[in-house]
């Protein structure tokens, strides 16, 4: 009797496991779209209240106009989207339409989890975005796996009253060189106040993105995602300057280097830092949190020897390869990417639309808010960077680059040590 029971349990377990194995391979690309009415799931990561409302409005409008393609909106979060998608792709339950960012989705694209939507996008949408930005969502074999929507750049926020007190003129040109930025910071450092606060607790993204301004590309990436690393003077120019400002001329608060961007914000709002470097989305938080009378602006984009160039890492809209209706999903993405919709979303999030007509629309709608102009200008200098397509980049970023840069910004290792750690670390995981 006991033996029979054990056999029964064993058989049930085997059936269950074999079922799992059969299902585990079910991630083939859907090339045929469903016909007839469909309901598609769309996971949005919108965060700001105004953006959440704008997304809902876009979906509602679409649903009214397209009774045969209904969109069911769900809310996700930026912090967990990667883990969530890993599991959902494995289980075949990913949303039909996926909101994420290019640096995260390209790994999924290489594994075949994202559909090629190039044939479904209208020429209006395709022509509205620069080739550099399209490159960030195109695989080595030419598949477009997402539509780029909003972009972030690193900008310098300035307390204009603090600048006036020290007699520093607010720069108004098309770009601000790192040398001029450093000089301004020195002049603004006095009486326990620092010229700059920069939250670099997670420093890799900021360094990799701004390194392009000095032609710092870090990687030579092949079509299959394999890459070789090169850490030269261009790659190290930004960390070297940050280090010099923090520990040589003391114009950048070294404590802020150990904090997150939002942790440093109170120091900027209270006047401890005359300038504050961070993602342009922080403008929303400044607007919300600054006391009455706090005067601030955004300075022209930081420029290195190669100009005001930064890496583009756009937010993206993709279609799951497991979707039963990829064509219909792509049609919604095409509608979502229209200039009117993108402008609405960009203003809510204080981000830069990838679409040029949408940028123009935002510029027209925000002409009375001067801080928008330099932020939109910084979007012109966005380019694709090789690291975004390097297969082992996420691992190198978390395990090698972040701890190495943290040590360097804590003044615990030298520049040569940093170079060695970044280079040897890539070899160890490659």
């Amino acid at each position, binding site marked *: 009797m006991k033996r029979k029971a054990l056999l029964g349990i064993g058989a049930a377990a085997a059936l269950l496991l074999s079922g799992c194995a059969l299902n585990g391979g079910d991630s083939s690309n859907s090339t045929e779209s469903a016909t007839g009415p469909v309901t598609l*799931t769309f996971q949005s990561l919108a965060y700001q209240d105004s953006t959440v409302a704008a997304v809902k409005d876009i979906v509602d409008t679409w649903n009214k106009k397209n009774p045969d393609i209904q969109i069911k909106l769900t809310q996700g979060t930026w912090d967990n989207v990667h*883990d969530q998608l890993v599991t959902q792709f494995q289980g075949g339950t990913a949303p039909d339409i996926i909101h994420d960012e290019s640096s995260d989705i390209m790994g999924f694209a290489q594994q075949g989890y994202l559909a090629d939507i190039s044939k479904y996008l209208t020429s209006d949408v395709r022509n509205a975005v620069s080739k550099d930005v399209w490159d960030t969502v195109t695989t080595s074999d030419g598949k477009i796996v997402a539509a780029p929507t909003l972009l972030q750049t690193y900008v310098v926020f300035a307390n204009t009253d603090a600048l006036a007190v020290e007699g520093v003129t607010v720069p108004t040109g098309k770009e601000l060189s790192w040398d001029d930025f450093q000089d301004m910071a020195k002049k603004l450092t006095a009486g326990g106040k620092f010229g700059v606060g920069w939250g670099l607790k997670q420093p890799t993204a900021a360094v990799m993105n701004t390194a392009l301004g000095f032609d710092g590309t870090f990687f030579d990436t092949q079509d299959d995602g394999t890459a070789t690393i090169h850490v030269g003077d261009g790659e190290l120019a930004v960390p070297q300057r940050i280090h010099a400002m923090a520990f040589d001329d003391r114009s950048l608060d070294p404590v802020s280097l150990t904090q997150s961007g939002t*942790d440093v914000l109170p120091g900027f*709002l209270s006047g401890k830092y005359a300038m504050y470097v961070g993602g342009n989305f922080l403008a929303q938080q400044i607007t919300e949190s600054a006391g009455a009378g706090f005067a601030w602006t955004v300075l022209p984009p930081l420029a290195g020897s190669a100009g005001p160039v930064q890496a583009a890492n756009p937010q993206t809209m993709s279609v799951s390869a497991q979707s039963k209706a990829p064509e219909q999903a792509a049609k919604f993405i095409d509608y979502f990417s229209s200039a009117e919709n993108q402008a609405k979303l960009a203003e809510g999030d204080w981000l830069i639309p990838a679409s040029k007509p949408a940028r123009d629309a935002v510029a027209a709608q925000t002409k009375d808010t001067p801080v928008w102009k330099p932020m939109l200008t910084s979007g012109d200098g966005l380019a694709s960077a090789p690291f975004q397509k390097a297969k082992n980049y996420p691992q190198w970023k978390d395990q090698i680059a972040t701890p190495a840069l943290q040590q360097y910004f804590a003044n615990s290792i030298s520049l040569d040590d940093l170079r060695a750690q970044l280079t040897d670390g890539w070899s160890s995981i490659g």
Partner: protein
Amino acid sequence: MTQTLTRPRQVAPKFTEPPARRARTFTRPLQYLALLGYVVFLGFPLLFLLSTSLKTPQELQSADPSFLPKHLNWANFGDAVEKADLAQAAGNSLLVATLTTVVVTVISLPAAYALARLRTRLRGIATIWILLSQVFPFILIVIPVFLVLKQVGLVNNPLGLVLVYTVWCLPFALWMLRGYVAAIPVDLEEAGAIDGAGRPRVLRSIVLPLLAPGLVATSLFTFISSWNEFFFALVLIQDPGLRTLPLTLARFFGAEGQVQLGQLAAASLLATIPSLVFFLIIQRRLTSGLMSGAVKG
């Protein structure tokens, strides 16, 4: 010769405090002080949540923060309730946590008794298995768990969460409860048997009452673990109407450390209330059960 016996003069004893009482007079205020410190320590997170939930965004970003809000900003509560469907999420969490607690208790009670009392070879193996099962990190098992649940139609289903939380909480609950059973003297059960009680009667009338604090502690652990769990819920639940509270609270976090702190604190404070009520209901049982476990001799 007469001898007069003189009684030794009785001297009225001076009133002096017994040493134990004197010591108590000295230590009692210290005990209260320590207790107060402990209560403040335990209550501080709640007070901090309350204070944060009543601050304006400007005050929350102030470089010169104060513990008490300068102006009471009740809007955070309204915004939190409006944005995140807290009532529905609390209902989902309550359903999942309560069912998990019931299932874990029903399974772990007889299993713990068997592990503590029965002398079989399986006891050692089962104990090692319980400990080993705690070693595996979630991230290692989440995909297989997801695939199995998808096969049986329990993805995007509260029962799937109940199943996962049961498996997750059971080993530790079993381990806890086994300790409580082992602490009950076997003599008591033998005395009951000598008095003519069968095993069911011994279990019902002797073991169960003495095990009450253990059951309460175990169910509390299970309930709170299920109530707070985030990662499995994130992966298994997709329908907005089935989201549990931790998933709903994540709505207040944005990219790169952005957080709507005032609203998050307000929502978290509201989310804590059911746990506190649950604890208030059962804490009397927890303490009274501990007292009732005394054995003479």
